[in-house]
């Protein structure tokens, strides 16, 4: 084990992201990194730390607060042959550049009849950390509803590395959702930490495959991102109530492993679909539909997701954002039903 490992290891998810970017930029000279505050500051979450010092300010640079212009620039640069990695500081800001995502990034490869490629990664921070409705969204389904972009959502340190490498090496545009708690938390303190050796060379993770995080015979909790970590805590709590909860990590919203979801769901009589994104017309519906059309009636399902915008006060946020406690509660309810 490396010297910084163990309980004194202060590394967070942001360190892992920065390390992957560093490694990949060494490997591939075409990679350029830009966005707001990614240069000298190294990102507001520190996920691009030291990159500018290492690679200079032509490969790593700050942009104006002009998301449309610089996301478009990433698209054009990708089409021209570079491999841009662009940061949207909080996913909530995607609205100001949404056309570039919806109509250009996602569609240019298809519309060109395959003649242009758009190999870029858009990294963006998601999730609730007490900052109200404009700084807490996930919007995973907003992206997933657009044909032509891949949407990856790591839940664990291992996937933060493996999926990021896969994203960078993909020839398609990838939206890479980094949960703020995963970026900010010390890895050693995470409920589920699979980064035993965060210094080992990174292997690209398989994109488009769900992952079973935990076996369980009473209920399967299907979730993504930070909700997977919360589900791990919930499962432990359920265990004390003699309920055996399995956990399935979605990992990749697009492509979505619909078969995998259905076969995993078959392992228990009930499935609880958990999401931190808004419930309506989102991931919970897509997952339930994917299961229902494959194994109709075989599994009793319920969903547990955000059903309003995020309120500012923490006492209110706790009411609406799913957490370990609320997941355990909903699982029990589903089992009782």
């Amino acid at each position, binding site marked *: 084990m490396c010297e910084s490992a163990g309980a004194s290891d202060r590394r967070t998810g942001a360190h892992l992201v920065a390390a992957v970017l560093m490694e990949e930029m060494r490997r591939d000279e075409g990679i350029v990194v830009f966005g707001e505050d990614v240069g000298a500051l190294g990102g507001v979450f520190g996920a691009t730390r030291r990159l500018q010092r290492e690679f200079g300010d032509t490969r790593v640079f700050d942009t*104006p607060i002009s998301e449309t212009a610089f996301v478009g620039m990433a698209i054009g640069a990708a089409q021209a042959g570079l491999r841009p990695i662009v940061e949207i500081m909080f996913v909530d800001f995607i609205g100001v550049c949404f056309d570039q995502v919806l109509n250009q990034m996602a569609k240019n490869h298809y519309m060109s009849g395959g003649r242009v490629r758009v190999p870029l990664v858009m990294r963006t921070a998601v999730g609730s950390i007490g900052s109200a409705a404009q700084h807490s969204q996930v919007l995973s389904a907003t992206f997933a509803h657009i044909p032509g972009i891949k949407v990856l959502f790591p839940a664990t340190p291992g996937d933060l590395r493996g999926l990021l490498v896969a994203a960078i090496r993909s020839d398609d545009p990838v939206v890479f959702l980094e949960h703020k708690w995963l970026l900010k938390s010390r890895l050693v303190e995470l409920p589920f930490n699979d980064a035993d050796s965060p210094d080992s060379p990174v292997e690209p993770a398989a994109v488009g495959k769900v992952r079973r995080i935990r076996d369980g015979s009473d209920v399967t909790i299907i979730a993504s991102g930070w909700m997977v970590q919360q589900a791990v805590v919930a499962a432990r709590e359920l265990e004390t109530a003699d309920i055996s909860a399995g956990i399935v990590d979605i990992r990749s919203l697009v492509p979505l492993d619909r078969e995998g979801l259905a076969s995993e769901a078959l392992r228990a009589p009930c499935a609880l679909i958990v999401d931190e994104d808004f419930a309506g017309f989102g991931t919970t519906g897509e997952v339930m539909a994917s299961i229902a059309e494959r194994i109709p009636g075989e599994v009793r399902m319920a969903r547990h997701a955000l059903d309003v915008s995020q*309120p500012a006060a*923490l006492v209110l946020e706790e009411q609406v954002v799913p957490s370990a406690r609320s997941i355990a509660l909903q699982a029990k309810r589903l089992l009782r039903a």
Partner: protein
Amino acid sequence: MLTPRQLYETVLRMRLLEEGVGVAVQTGEIHGEMHLGIGQEMVSAVMGQYLQPRDALVSTHRPHLHALVKGVDPVQMLAELLERDGLNHGKGGHMHLFDPVASFMCTGIVGSGAPIAAGYALHRKLVAQGGLTVAVVGEGAMNQGAVFETMNLAAVLSLPMVFLCENNDYGISVPRRLSTAGQLVERGAGFGINGWECDGVDQRALDEAFSAAFADTRKHSRPTLIVAHVYRFRGHYEGDTDHYRPAEEKETAFRDRDPLLVARRDLVGAGWSDERIVALDGEIGREVSDWFEAARSLPFPDPSEARRGTFVDV
């Protein structure tokens, strides 16, 4: 022009409010991001004289000072910041303060307030003539498409609208020279919008700019632009380590460009003794701590509030 006492009082009130909020972040009473206006007080203090109740103001992620001068109740606002059942029942918080009575609002999305401000201005133009709208933006926001579009729209529709750019030379860590081409004040020119640039810790310069721009907008129902140069005394948000700004730059600014020191100097210049100032400090201090106390005495929002109010109907 505000008297030295008025200016000092106003700036001090703002300073103490922001400092108190900063403390509440440190003690964990406030969660989430917090952007304070310390160092930028004089701009709002001077603007206050020119604002009328029928005017509207749309502010940014750094909104408290604008809210104060626009007449938002400080206790209600503080209660909202302190995650109590305040101005917006705890659902808006620091970056999303809405007060329809004071015609004040703000948004946490950089640049996105400007178009909304144009809507208030349209309302003023069509049915509440004489009123105007202020859209506040940082200099970083001046690179956001929404702001440009709104300048053109306001010009072409002759909307009574003042664009106030508080230029503190940084958008988070990014210095203006790395993000912003040309001269900010000239950005109106392409739309035929007159601009005033001024030092944001020079009361007289601010007064000239505000009186001229507000008068122009009110009289001709057309947009104007003010760019006021200030320094942000805190990190971008509370907790920001702020390593990206040179120590020397900060020291110089803290010494020379502190609105409170400048206002205090004027007060001294106007013949105020140290004792009188100390007494005034005490008075304003009590006033502001009363605000905090009143805000803290309000209850937390009822948990049921969280799921209320997605729609009016239904």
